């Protein structure tokens, strides 16, 4: 029996938590999220190098929330998601029990936000080097080239909204896309509809994206959606000194004004 199963069993038995979000074996060689409610189910839990999904998005799902007090197996992206969600008042301190899987397979417990913040401060939270190369390539393009690149990518979009469902920050009960009085974002999967949707999503994630990459992983059409929101991370850091998902009491960079804010984006 692995340490993880032992730990989760203990947590469930002493009622520290009512349910635990972890990974289990899916069909074929896939890994999928699982929601453990008792000792028997806990036996399904696995933890290996393929367990990379950011599970934090499930914390706010209605069906998961009603299971009671939640525990979660978190990676760095999930920790940052929890911090960002906390800063947006979606998770309260102490509400979620967090188990962090270290690289060597050992587990670290986090029961409060302070310890997560302290941990993140000394952890590499940056964008992966291969992703950085892609961004550098994008940024080296002319505006027109970039426009063509994205339009070509968006052509593939089938508006399945998997990106939205996978994103830990897309927790609105009713997405702007689904608002039809008035219908600002066309629902149809045509050129304008796709562009509008992805631009809207990028803007809604500006300053909030925790670079977990779930959107791109979820996309069945292999659109590198993560690059769209990642590209907004460094300008916001450079302009306002803010990085999303590092502090539970952070204020949103784009909703606050400081007298020393740079205004070099105003043309």
């Amino acid at each position, binding site marked *: 029996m692995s340490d993880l199963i032992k730990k989760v069993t203990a947590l469930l038995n002493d009622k520290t938590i009512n349910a635990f979000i972890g990974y289990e074996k899916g069909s074929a060689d896939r890994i999928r999220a699982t929601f453990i409610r008792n000792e028997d189910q806990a036996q399904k839990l696995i933890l290996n190098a393929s367990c990379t999904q950011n599970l934090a998005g499930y914390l706010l799902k209605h069906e998961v929330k009603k299971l009671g007090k939640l525990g979660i197996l978190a990676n760095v992206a999930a920790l940052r998601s929890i911090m960002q969600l906390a800063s947006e008042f979606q998770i309260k301190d102490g509400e979620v029990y967090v188990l962090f899987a270290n690289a060597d397979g050992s587990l670290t417990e986090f029961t409060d936000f302070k310890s997560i913040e302290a941990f993140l401060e000394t952890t590499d939270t940056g964008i992966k080097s291969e992703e950085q190369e892609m961004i550098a390539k994008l940024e080296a393009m002319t505006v027109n080239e970039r426009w063509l690149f994205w339009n070509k990518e968006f052509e593939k979009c089938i508006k399945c909204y998997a990106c939205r469902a996978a994103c830990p920050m897309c927790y609105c009960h009713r997405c702007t896309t689904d*608002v039809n*009085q*008035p219908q600002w974002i066309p629902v149809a999967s045509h050129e304008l509809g796709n562009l509008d949707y992805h631009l809207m999503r990028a803007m809604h994630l500006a300053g909030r994206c925790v670079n977990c990459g779930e959107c791109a992983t979820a996309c069945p059409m292999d659109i590198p959606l993560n690059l769209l929101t990642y590209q907004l991370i460094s300008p916001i850091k450079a302009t306002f000194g803010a990085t999303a998902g590092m502090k539970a009491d952070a204020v*949103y960079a784009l909703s*606050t004004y400081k007298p020393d804010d740079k205004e070099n984006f105003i043309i």
Partner: protein
Amino acid sequence: MSRIGVFVCHCGENISATVNCEKVAKITGELKGVEFSTDYKYMCSYPGQTLIKEAIKEHKLDGVVVAACSPRMHEPTFRKACAEAGLNPFLCEMSNIREHCSWVHPKDDLTTEKAQDLVRVMVEKVKKNKALNSIKVPVTKTALVIGGGIAGIQAALDIANCGHKVIMVERQPSIGGHMSQLSETFPTLDCSQCILTPRMVEVAQHPNITLHTYSEVESVDGFIGNFKVKIRKRSKSIDEHLCTGCGLCTTKCPQKKIPNEFERGLGFRPAIYVPFPQAVPNKPVIDREHCTYYIKGKCKICEIVCPTKAIRFDQEDEVIDVAVGAIVMATGFDVLKTDYFPEYGYGKYADVIDGLAFERLASASGPTQGEIRRPSDGKIPKKIVFVACAGSRDPAKGIEYCSKICCMYTAKHAMLYKHKVHDGIPYVFYMDIRAGGKNYEEFVRRTIVEDETQYIRGRVSTIYEKNGKLIVKGADTLMGAQPVEIEADMVVLATAGVANHGAEELAQTVHISYDPYKFFAEAHPKLKPVETNTAGIFLAGACQAPKDIPESVAAASGAAVKVAALFSNDELTRDPLVAVVNRSAPPVYSQCVGCFLCQSVCPYQAIEREEIKNRNGEVIKTLARVNEGLCQGCGTCVALCRTKAIDIHGYSNQQVYTEIMALLND
């Protein structure tokens, strides 16, 4: 089906010179939903308004579009006219075909077409307009005046004399402010204290005014008509009810060498002190920083000598909560000290003083009983140099503005000096003489002509000490920048007037905006000079910008009238054009997900948290709620709300969308 009326105004020739108004009326009259359309020379005139009113009744109109000037100009006029005809005023909209069309385009068919487009857009909008009712907010008829200088005193007395309660908070042990430090006042040379102290006493004795000295505002919550304020009453270490103000303690205090702030450091005071003889309230406070007892743990001489046993060493700060309906900011200004100026010796020369210190020297109640004696050795200076614009109008010093009062007080200083030292020679270095004001230019002229003051147009580059004299080096720009060197006995710097210390923090505490110099910002530089951008908070005096006494008093009375007007009704009526968070049936309750990004972006602190609870009192959902009393309808929250849970009455998403579509679907 709508029954909309379109009324196209010629505005004399302002519109009709470039727009074919008859054609606009005719074409827009054919739009779907438009029941009636006409044009008229002056729609805002009495007959024009009558035309609208009669059309509303005759054609049973359910919406009105007035195509005329900017809504900033006449929207209230036309909405009122509609209300008088029985139509909800918020079903009336204006289409701006003057500023947005006729004024900026030549006479052309395209101009007329644009006017038609603008009207069509507004017709489509009005179709989506909803009848709205004005918002009513109760008013607490008590005003808070922050600052007890002349501006605060004037505002407090004016408000109190209107029959309203006033709470005055002053940081210092006494009210009076800078005006109490002045000797005589320009341009009449009447004694500052003589005209001020009766006002100070009036404040203390007024039945409607509650005075809290040695106190500061700690927090301000709420909104116009309904502010909740916490005031920290710092411990004075005396029981004010027992103290008779006999002053025995102040004479016996062993600490006697504390630089006196009121005398601008030219005199000394004990640790238990009254700042000046006419102080209100005339009861001492213990300066705990310098008191022997608080430093060493023993002394208590004041307690021993006090005949009424009023000393309280263990007294603690008291925080009181007050409810007020309006706030007047009257926190005044400060002047730079001489140590700000490296070229003038960083304040190391005792005989280089600032203007306020000179006021104390010239004052009959000052450290020299009104004789002009220099601080270093008490000699009467025979040559004195006044430097105007010390810091002011100097981008290199970061103070680009004109401090406004210095030209006048420098002229006054030179005059007072000459009146007291008949054989002395006053010099004034100046950049320009700015003496705009009633009898001001004449006053300066008198200083130059009758009192033989040497005015030198130029700036002083450096001041240094040599053989007991201050060598003032400058240039006379009217003599071809010829170098000037004066061996002076004393130098007075008219240092720049700056925002009072702590102004920025206070502005943040009360939630008002301020400019880069930390002066409080008015809502409109011309038309709303005493209002702030926060409804219910007003400005008086030099906390807004450097002001002289008449201006401060005028602004204070202006602010007082605004407060009195606010208090003239039991309820406030506001336009209902505010943001609203949508609500829906359970289990959703609202599109709002409670991320509260709107709360941090709102410049008016209008977003509150609302908890939706079930029957057992458990919180099901936390939502944003807009406080209608505070919301100014700016729409920033609407732009930021990802889920489109917030909308603005009168400018709803649906209305804006309809307007855009009306243009695109032409």
